[in-house]
């Protein structure tokens, strides 16, 4: 254990966290700009060139906002809930490989924080569950009917879709024979991207992920048409910003996981195979993430919201059986045609 290793970890963690924060800021900009174009509008174009400073202006405004704490609220939980929600979203990507191993000043540095962690996928499944706590606590501690209902709705929704989400992980794991995300990416380099083998799994993942991160058309907990803003209705200022940040970072995270599990991660045929291509890995991954984010925004601009009971019914009665069937189908094919998957 040497100091250099610690410094390396700290630097990588800082890069990841700060990168996610910047990503969040510019994702809001990207969403507003794309939504505007979908809707025949211009979108933000006043702060800075092309409105590029809009996220900064928003951030500064939120910092200087008065923060209200409702009477009879549970103050400690009320303060802690945004942090409990934010931290899991920030740390999920710790197990994601952003690229191969590069050589910096004579050091072999893998472009990930713990990409070869042997329980990577399990870690993702575990950490996503934790954010539910933050949301329930936020709703409960606000002493507000909208917030309580929004929090409970949200948690029920998230746990319901987590089943299908976890089941959609099983396919890639079976194909790679490992829980480590680094292994999964490497396996895709060998036998091709898993979306080819797991088309159903990919679709299930996308739907379940949209529900998991509370995005349209499943943005039930913050359905402004009925519950005004759901669980974070009483939050203002920076604490509100943390909730929003979590939502957007989760979008990035989900896109990153989808890209890694099904779309080859940092791998791009004929490019990253070259000796100089290893440096391109992170950028290729980011490109894939942006593409998926664009899809998520597109869905939001297009679809109305489903109703809560329909949402729960879909999770339990449609998605879960299909996901189980998908696992079954994959295993049958793998037993019948073992040659396809060996190398």
């Amino acid at each position: 254990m040497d100091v250099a290793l610690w410094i390396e970890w700290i630097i990588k963690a800082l890069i990841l966290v700060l990168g996610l924060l910047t990503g969040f800021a510019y994702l809001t900009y990207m969403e507003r700009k794309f939504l505007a174009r979908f809707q025949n509008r211009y979108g933000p174009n006043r702060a800075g060139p092309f409105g590029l400073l809009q996220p900064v202006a928003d951030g500064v405004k939120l910092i200087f906002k008065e923060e209200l704490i409702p009477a009879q609220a549970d103050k400690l939980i009320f303060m802690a809930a945004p942090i409990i929600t934010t931290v899991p979203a920030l740390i999920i990507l710790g197990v994601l490989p952003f690229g191969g191993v590069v050589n910096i000043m004579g050091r072999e540095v893998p472009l990930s924080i713990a990409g070869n962690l042997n329980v990577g996928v399990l870690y993702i499944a575990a950490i996503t569950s934790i954010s539910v706590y933050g949301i329930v606590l936020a709703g409960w501690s606000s002493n507000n009917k909208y917030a309580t209902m929004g929090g409970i709705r949200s948690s029920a929704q998230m746990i319901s879709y987590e089943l299908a989400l976890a089941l959609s992980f099983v396919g890639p794991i079976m194909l790679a024979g490992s829980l480590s995300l680094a292994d999964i990416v490497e396996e895709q380099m060998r036998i091709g991207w898993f979306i080819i083998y797991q088309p159903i799994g990919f679709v299930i993942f996308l739907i379940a992920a949209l529900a998991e991160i509370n995005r349209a058309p499943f943005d039930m907990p913050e359905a402004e048409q009925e519950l005004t803003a759901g669980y974070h209705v009483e939050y203002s200022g920076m604490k509100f910003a943390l909730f929003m940040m979590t939502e957007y970072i989760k979008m990035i995270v989900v896109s990153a996981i989808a890209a890694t599990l099904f779309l080859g991660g940092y791998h791009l045929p004929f490019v990253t195979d070259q000796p100089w291509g290893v440096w391109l890995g992170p950028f290729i991954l980011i490109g894939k993430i942006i593409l998926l984010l664009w899809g998520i925004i597109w869905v939001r601009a297009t679809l109305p919201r489903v109703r809560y009971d329909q949402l729960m019914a879909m999770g339990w009665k449609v998605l879960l059986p299909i996901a189980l069937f998908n696992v079954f189908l994959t295993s049958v094919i793998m037993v019948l045609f073992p040659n396809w998957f060996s190398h």
Partner: protein
Amino acid sequence: MTEQLAPSVEELARVDELTTRFPEVVTPDTRKGYEGYIVRPENLIEVATYIRDEMGYDFLANLCGVDYLPENKMEVVYNVFRTTGGRGLTFKVQTPRDSSSVPSLTPVYPGADFQERETWDLLGIRFEGHPDLRRILMWEGFNGHPLRKDWREPFFEEEGKPFKSRWPEGHVYRIEDKNPFANNVAYPEGFDPDQWEPENDARLYESLRRSVKELYSDLDTEIIMVNMGPQHPSTHGVFRIAVALDGETVLALKPVMGYLHRNHEKIGERNTFLQNMPFTDRLDYLSSMSNNFGYALAVEKLMGVKPPERAEYLRVIMAELTRISNHIFAIGMFLNDLGAYFTPALYAIEERELILDIFEAVSGSRMMCNYFRFGGVARDLPEGVYDKIYKLVYDRLPRRIDELDLYLTNNEIVRSRTEGVGVLTPEQAIAFSEAGPVLRASGVPYDIRRADPYSIYDRFDFDVAVRYHGDTYDRYLIRIDEMRQSIRILQQAVRDLPEGPIQEGKPQYQVRVPAGEAYGRVEGPKGELGYYVVSNGKPNPWRYHVRAPSFINLNAYETMCVGNKIADVVAILGSIDIVLGETDR
């Protein structure tokens, strides 16, 4: 015009039937300029039941009170119609001013509910037997009943405009400047404004609890009472819905309105007849041309004038363009209520803007058009506008309506959210006095343009749009159908638009309106928009009442919502399509 007004032989026979069936109880209204029958209050329910069941007048369109101060009596006027079409029947009840009380007609016409509450609120006529007689437009702490002729507001100046006091020797000043606020406000006895809690809605919640008990007497789970509104993103303005919930399911619901109330009718009675024309724009501010239309018809009925041909065509063109702009906006905002994040709304607004361009060209204003005049319209089409309208109705609008239809109608989520939600049966729809798209979506083909044609609607070839399920989806579809029919009317009207004058006689600022009463109604985009005007020969109307479809259509709101989910409450409200300017007046 005169032919339309004169009752047919069959009509007279029916009406005689009423006086022969109830001698002594029902007497014809013989005052000059008045029509209909006066019913003795004690027998009102009996007579109304007969009128509904035996004579077939199943639709209570309008109910309003009139304060006849000189004769020291109150009168309640009922305008009933048949949903199969034809002219209506008017009957009235009279009651002394100082203990005015009339039996409630809610057992016969459930649609009388809100209108009776409004009449109680504004005129202080008590309706015996009304299940929930609370104030509806004014707040509970309001002193008195403002539409009574002897009620005076704090800054009372004169009974009718123009107020001479404001132009002493040609100098304008405001009487408020002379009369500082606070020392002339009258409160009810025992009322202390400092102690009063505006949120204390004990009577509302009590009524909500009563409804829950009536419907679910054996219910044992915890009921949550939630307010949606007035400060809520999806209530289309400052509208409030108090809901009793069991989890997600709505057990009972009470709409609360009046946050935008400005007593339109009192101001209307102070104004001169023509001054009311721009004032009607402010009712349903999304369809001001239709509002003008109804008011112009009512006053023209009193005056006995008829606009020239070109003006009639221009009126129809503007009214139908208004219908399209209103419906396309309603559909856009309805999709927003379903959670589609503004995309359909903004595409709908794009078309609406083009229609508003035309309004701006002809009237000088995009929304507050003030375009109609008694016996004509204000201005002729400016140069080039005809071609614009032509292109719009023959090319662009039909295309864009098809496009909306294509993208929205068969969307899976739209269908699963709306089909079978908020069902209103035809019987309920008629009973609750629903009008317009809400009524026709329930399978009642009742469109005033066809059932009781006004203006020149009898010349056009169009179908009455009707749908049969009565759910939210049908209320959405019917608006698409109606836009298509409006396009048909527009295409004919634009094609046949004749040359000629646009105003009967000379344009006048002060019109002479003979004494009498008139109920003028049009098929507005939101439903039957009626104006009940009473003139006593003076420059100002004695009574000016608006039958607001946005207001009366809310009668059935609770019935539609109960048993559905909380998210449907918003969708159903969007499908009724209310505008708060009209609801609250």
